[in-house]
Structure formats: structure tokens, C-alpha cells
């Protein structure tokens, strides 16, 4: 099962024979296409790849990938994936989840998988709604959202998925959206390259129950003014002429400024590699709402001890120290006596 010599594959090799069953126009199609196109480029083999999901529209994803897969139960994919990755560090393990699956019922498994830094790639399809159960609000829905379960509007503040991830010690955190295949692929590629748990939030349109939730930001005509592209080592600039940027204030907060006003050297250089998550966190909080400029790309990407490897290392070390397990020896280890 070495991945050293992987046969060249095409999108077709990664596409299962199952009919894709999302609503026409659903953002999930674009994400699926991005992934199926990307996989051949990653130099991995379908048989060494596992897609695990929970329940939700998004969670149907594994059926459409010609890999090993599990469409598990609601919210539990990160735990199951932890089992797969810990047992088999040789596998390439992906988790597909939704805002309800991953952040509502599955919130605890998600944060613990991130804390442990298990080598899995988590793609969270955030459509800010429960699609599969036909339109209830989710933990990422904005306050006041009118849905089937909140006929006069929701009253609880949403999670910012990136904040949750960063608060939970995530070592790789990124955001992309379903309308930009190239950006998705770059982001997924980086997530895959990262050794440890990678968390990618994907803004995904549910055209049936929450149409246009992100269009103020992701619609082609809005992107230049509303999307802030994060590039490691580069100043954080945006706008049609890159005339605006992000600056660190001495008050402890980030500010969006006109470059002309402050000078380019005052613009913050994006550093995804810093050990401390606080700047990534500040960037994740930069947009107050869906109508203000929003950073995309990789927020944080640091190396720290990966769980499955560390667990394996302990197993290997024990075997080296004590030799392979000997059952007879084990049974005698409490001390024995002989009769007859």
C-alpha cells in the first residue's frame, strides 16, 4: 500500500457509478466536480482514499467518489475518521460534513479531531441551513432567520466556523466557496498537503432553502470588493486595484484601511505559519457580517505533532523496546504457581 508509485488516474477513476442526487443548481455539484478533478493531481490512489461523511445533503458526497467510503450517521464522521486514520496512517482520509452535521450535532467530535490533529481533511459545506430535512435554521444561520422552525426569526447568534476551529487548536484552517473551482482546488490541495487535521469551510449555496446567502460576497461582480485573498508572505490587500488592505492597530484590533492613507508598509503581511492562532483568529473575525469584506484562503497552516503518527510511534517504540507481543509471557506476567 505504498503510495510511492501511484498509477496515473483521471477524473473518471474517481467517479463512482452512482447517480448524483442533489437538487438541480445545488452548490454541491461544483464542489464534487472540483474534488473529482483535483484527486488525479494529488498523486494518490483511489483505493488508498477514504471519504467519510455524516448525514445531510452534503454528506451524500462519498457515494459519488469511486473510493472507499462511509456515509455514517449524523455528526459522527470526525470520530469515525479518527478511527480510520489512527488505525491506518497510510490512508488518505477525507471528512465531508455540513454546517448542521459538523457544527450542530457533531460539534464536539469536530473540535476534538482538530485538537488531536488527526491527519484528516475536513470539508465543511456551509450553506447555513439544514438542507436534507427541508429547511430549518442551522448554527451558522444569521440572527433573525425565518425558517420552518423559526417562523418569527431565530434569536441565537451563529458560530463562525473558522473561529470555532481556531479556538479548538486547529493547525490548518481555510475558507473557500462553491463558485470558484480553481480556488477550491488550491485550498483542498493545501489541506491535503498539510500533515494533521485540516479544516476547510466552503460557502455553499442551497438554492432551494437558502438561495443567495453568500451572493453579496461571492457573486462575480462583488468579489473584487468583498473577497480578501489571503496569500502567505504577502500583504493583505484587496479591491479592484488592490487599493485597500488590512492593518494591525495598536489598540489590539485589525482595521481595513486605504493603502493610500497608511502606506503599503503598514499593511499586515499574512503569516499562516505563526505558532500562535491569534492573528488567524482576528482575520476570521474581520467581517462583521455577510455584507463586509471577507477573507478567503488559508488562515493558518502550522506543523505540530500529528495524532495518528504519534500513536503509531508509541506502538513501534513499544515493539522495539519489548519485542513483539508474546501471549505466553503476558499470561505469566502476574506471577504463576504450579499445581501437580
Amino acid at each position: 500500500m505504498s503510495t510511492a508509485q501511484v498509477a496515473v488516474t483521471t477524473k473518471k477513476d474517481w467517479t463512482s457509478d452512482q447517480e448524483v442526487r442533489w437538487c438541480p443548481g445545488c452548490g454541491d455539484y461544483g464542489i464534487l466536480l472540483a474534488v473529482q478533478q483535483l484527486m488525479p493531481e494529488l498523486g494518490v490512489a483511489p483505493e488508498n482514499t477514504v471519504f467519510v461523511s455524516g448525514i445531510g445533503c452534503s454528506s451524500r458526497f462519498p457515494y459519488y467518489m469511486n473510493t472507499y467510503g462511509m456515509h455514517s450517521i449524523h455528526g459522527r464522521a470526525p470520530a469515525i475518521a479518527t478511527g480510520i486514520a489512527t488505525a491506518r496512517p497510510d490512508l488518505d482520509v477525507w471528512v465531508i460534513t455540513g454546517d448542521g452535521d459538523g457544527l450542530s450535532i457533531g460539534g464536539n467530535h469536530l473540535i476534538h479531531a482538530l485538537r488531536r490533529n488527526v491527519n484528516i481533511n475536513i470539508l465543511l459545506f456551509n450553506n447555513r441551513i439544514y438542507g436534507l430535512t427541508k429547511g430549518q435554521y442551522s448554527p451558522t444561520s444569521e440572527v433573525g432567520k425565518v425558517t420552518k422552525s423559526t417562523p418569527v426569526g431565530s434569536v441565537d447568534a451563529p458560530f463562525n466556523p473558522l473561529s470555532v476551529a481556531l479556538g479548538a487548536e486547529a493547525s490548518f484552517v481555510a475558507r473557500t466557496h462553491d463558485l470558484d473551482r480553481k480556488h477550491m482546488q488550491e485550498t483542498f490541495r493545501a489541506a491535503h498537503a498539510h500533515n494533521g487535521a485540516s479544516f476547510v469551510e466552503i460557502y455553499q449555496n442551497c438554492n432551494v432553502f437558502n438561495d443567495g446567502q453568500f451572493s453579496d460576497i461571492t457573486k462575480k461582480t462583488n468579489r473584487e470588493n468583498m473577497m480578501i485573498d489571503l496569500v502567505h508572505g504577502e500583504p493583505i490587500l484587496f479591491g479592484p486595484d488592490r487599493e485597500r488592505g488590512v492593518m494591525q492597530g495598536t489598540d489590539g484590533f485589525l482595521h481595513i484601511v486605504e493603502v493610500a492613507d497608511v502606506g503599503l508598509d503598514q499593511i499586515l503581511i499574512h503569516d499562516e505559519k505563526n505558532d500562535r492562532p491569534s492573528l488567524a483568529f482576528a482575520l476570521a473575525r474581520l467581517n462583521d457580517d455577510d455584507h463586509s469584506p471577507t477573507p478567503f484562503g488559508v488562515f493558518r497552516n502550522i506543523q505540530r505533532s500529528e495524532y495518528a503518527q504519534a500513536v503509531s510511534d508509541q506502538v513501534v517504540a513499544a515493539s522495539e523496546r519489548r519485542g513483539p507481543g508474546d501471549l505466553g509471557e503476558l499470561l505469566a506476567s502476574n506471577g504463576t504457581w504450579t499445581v501437580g
Partner: protein
Amino acid sequence: MTDTIERSDTAGNDRVLDHLVVRFAGDSGDGMQLTGDRFTSVSASFGNDLSTLPDFPAEIRAPAGTVNGVSAFQVNIADHEITTPGDEPNVLVAMNPAALKADLHRLEVGGTVIVNEDSFDARDLSKAGYVDSSDEPVNPLEDGTLNGYRVLKVPMTSLTKEVCEPLGVKPRDAERSKNFFALGLVSWMYTRPTEPTEEWIGQKFAKNEQVAAANTAAFRAGFNFGETTEAVGHRYEVRPATLPAGTYTSITGNQALSWGLVAAGQLAKLPITLGSYPITPASDILHELSKHKHFGIRTVQAEDEIAAVGVALGASFAGHLGITTTSGPGVALKSETISLAVAIELPLLIIDIQRGGPSTGLPTKTEASDLNIALYGRHGESPLPVVASKSPADCFHAAIEAARIALKYRTPVILLSDGYLANGSEPWKLPDVDSLPDISVPFATGTNHVDDDGNEEFWPYLRDPETLARPWAIPGTPGLMHRVGGLEKADGTGNIDYTPQNHERMTELREAKVAAVTADIPPTEVEGDVDADVLVLGWGSTWAAIDAAVQRRRRVGVKVAKAHIAHLSPLPPDLGDLLRRYRKVIVPELNRGQLAHLLRGTYLIDIISVSKIQGLPFKSREIEAAIDAAIESLGADSEGGAS
């Protein structure tokens, strides 16, 4: 000593007992578990058969000196094979008034009480609640409370301090060795060899010479106190039992279960991944397995029970033997994931060390009330095999059996043990490692179906015609990529399929697969009188008490038979016929009659349920009474003319 047979020794000096039940009781801080353990080990290596019952206080530490803080360890040693830790101790060692208060009522009539006299001061008496109506302390050693018992008052604390002084041990530290004094005294009284204990002290406290010296000194002082003090009187002896020849070790249920899991991995030629979340009384299995990484064992302490079983199931999908260990509350939480395992048909071991319920219940007390949740605790029709262990050592074999079924039939299996087995110990004749069964199963390596156009395909739900197991194709195998999930699947291809007939067929297949396990269940063994009218049928840890009860009744001429089942789902195929051979069937359970109800519904037999739900194992006496009652009712039945 009502039940103990006292024989005259050939030398005419020491008296010989056929068995002896000693209960060491003291404050949580007094080291009673250690003392009991030591006494057990020495007796084991001396060749006695034995059975132990540690009795911890509740999970959190109660104030020192109070009844709630009492920790006890009961051990039964015998010159013949025994199975229970004894209904009533013959000897009670009480290190403080609270211990006396907590445990005196357990002692047999006329039994021996050994007390640490030093502790019976006003403060400790008050703490233990030995007070009069005006809250003044009253000393039970003096007020007639102990009339009718043989009482040995020994100033253990002061004698220990005294003997430790020359070693330069501070009095407060010296006091800590008083349990070794008690052990020494009891060792003398019951003729236990001393070298093993002295050796053990040397090893155990190797890092702290002074402590080792103090403990040794206290131990010897106690022994010598017996030897030299008139007060102690006769020595007694419990001769080695004539156990079957073999190499023995002393083992608790949780350790045996852990080792059984290690063995299962070896016998299956599979690495193990344990996903677990700590919970009393199951945590020790997590602790034990995490020590044996060199057997290729990965242990993941998960964030909760749901994650723990998820980790195990993920590992199974990936080709490991996936295991999760827990107790009742954890089983409840795992239900939904176990149901997924039923649907995706992968091997998975769920181990439930039962404790008192409902809810948090009695976390440190034993009970066997999770049979129902094991059988029925999942939504939908979600059948799976359930296996139970019957004694501490049997946990080893039960673990292997559960793993065997899980692997062969690709199914989650629930293994039931309980708090009593978990912490109790017994001598275990070590099995010949080479004689243990090969339980390995092959992974799928190639396609198994040809479509209409002649293309080779892999059908993940194409079953073995005999076991009905589906192929286990693990990631990394080229060409066998497939998806599993919790939605209903088409028979064969495993694609999502909600059609009515398919669902009915799949439901029946899942049921039939569990039923197929009966093929491997050996005939149910019946012991006792062939012509008995009454059968005692047991499962789980009631085995010991039932065994003792049936033996005792038979010794006095009562006709009775017994059988014990390890397989609760599916039930042994011969069970219905077997039960119908008796006029009365008694099922003693540490619950409110869960197996009894299952048997009634399955076989339409009017089972007599004998229920005990006190956080304690059965006394054999209680089962004897049930046997007698059943026999009596037979008479009544005959008189009435009905049968």
C-alpha cells in the same frame, strides 16, 4: 464457624479448615485492598483455590474514619474448588470502628473479629457513629456488641510504631504500615507462608528502603504477635486444594478480559484499536490495554462514548479489530452507532462492564441489568449477538469468543461482564497458548460478481451462503472500492435501496445472520442430578453462587441440576428442549428478571425468576432457598393434582 469443616491436624496442634473467608476492612487510606491482595496471592501460590470480592467505597473519597469511607476486601480460600467469595466471612479484620460498624453484620455467627484496638478512641468512635443518644461515644468493644463472637483486640497502631522506631521511621509514617501488622497476624493465625510476602515487600518498595523496612518489620511483628501471645490461641490451616495440574495465576475479571482481547488480536492476526471513554468499572480495561502497545494495540481515549465507538467502528472499516469498552450509561450513548454497525455489517466488539442503574445509579456496585439494552436497545430491527462471561478468569475466553463471532459473522457483538467479575479475582489455570483457536478471517481480495456485460464487479453485500457474512474489503485493496452507510442497502450490490421487498429481505437477512451463530454454539452442559425436577439456569456472574448452591443442596441429598449459558443472543439451539425436560426452571439474576422474560417469550415456559438488585452478588444461600422453594412448590403442585 457454621459452614467451615474443622478437622484435626495430624500433628494434633494446628486445626485444619476446609475453607476460610477473611474480610479485611478499614478506612480507604488503610491499604485494605493491598492487604487483601497479598493474602490472596500468598494463598494462591500456596495452592488454595480462592475467590475474592473487593468492596470499594463510592467513587469519591468520604471523610476518613466514617462508615462511608470504609474499604473492604473479602477473600475465600479453600482446599477444594470454590467459586464464590463466601456468603459470610469467618474472620473480620476491622482496622477502625467504622469498619466494624460497616461489616460486623456480615460476619457469621460466632466468627472471629480482629480489631485494631488503638483506633477505638472517642474521636474515631464518634466518626463511626458509635454514640449514645446524647452523642457521647460508646465503645462496642466494651458494651456487649461483640458478645457471641471470638474477639481479638490488638493495639496494632502502637505496636507497629514501636517496632518501627528503631528504624528511624517517624511515628506518622510508621502508622501507615499497620496493615502489614494485620497481615502478619492473620498470616500466622492461618498458617500462611511468610517468605513470598517479605519478598514482595522488598520488590514493591525497592525504591524506598525505609518504607520497605517498616513494612517488613510490621509484618513480622504481627506474625510474632500471634506466635508469642497467648491470646491468639490456635493456628488454623487451610490445605492446598487439589486443583487440576497446571500453571496458575491469580487474575481479576477486567485483567482477564483485557488479556482476552490481546489474545483475540493475536489469534485473529489483526491489530487492535480500542476506542474508549473512562467509566467505572470498565476503565481498567483501557488502562490495561494501553500497557500492551507492543502487541500492535492502539488505544484512543475518546472525547465521549459516542466518539469511542465511532473510533472503533472506523478502525474496523480500516481492517483492525475495533473494540470499545464501557458500562451501562456508555452503552446507552453508543446505541445509535451500534445500530450503524448492524447496518454496515462490520466486526465490532462492545464490552459492557455492568453496574447498578438506572442513570448514574451505583457506579461501584455490581448488577446485571443491561441485558435488555444489549438485546433491544437500538431503534429499528437491529439484532446482534450478545455474549456474557461467568467468572473472572472466564472473561478471557468470553472476550475471544465475542471477537470470534464478530469477525466470522461481520457483526457488532456485545460482551457483558459486571462489576463483581471486573474486580473479583480467582486462580486461573493458564491455557496452553498454542491450543487457543485461530479466529482469523480473510479480507476480500478480488471481485466477486460478474455483471450482465461480463464485467467483474465487487458486491460488498454478497454474502457467504453459510454464515451470511458479507465480504470485508479494506481500504488499500485495489479494485474493491465501495461505500457503506446507514441507509437501507440493496441485497448484493449494497446500493441505497428503499424498495419494500428489499427492506423486508435485508431485515430478514440481518436476523438470519445473527441466528446463524447458533451453528457454533456447543451443546449446553448440564451438571447435577440427571433425574432432577428442578433446573437452575444462569448467565453471567451468578455462575459462582449457583454452582455453590447446587453443590451444597446436592451434598444434603436434594436433587437439582444446573446449566449456565454464555450466549444470550442467539440463545443456544438446544435450550428450549433442555428447559422443557424439567418441571421447574429457576433463573437467578442480578436484575428484575430480564433473561427470565426472554425465555418465557421464546419458549412459553413458566420460568421462575429469582431477582436480586442490591448492588451485590447472590449469596449461594439465597439460591439454595429458591431451590428449596421450587421443590416445595412441586410438592404443592402434585398435591393439587396439576402439573
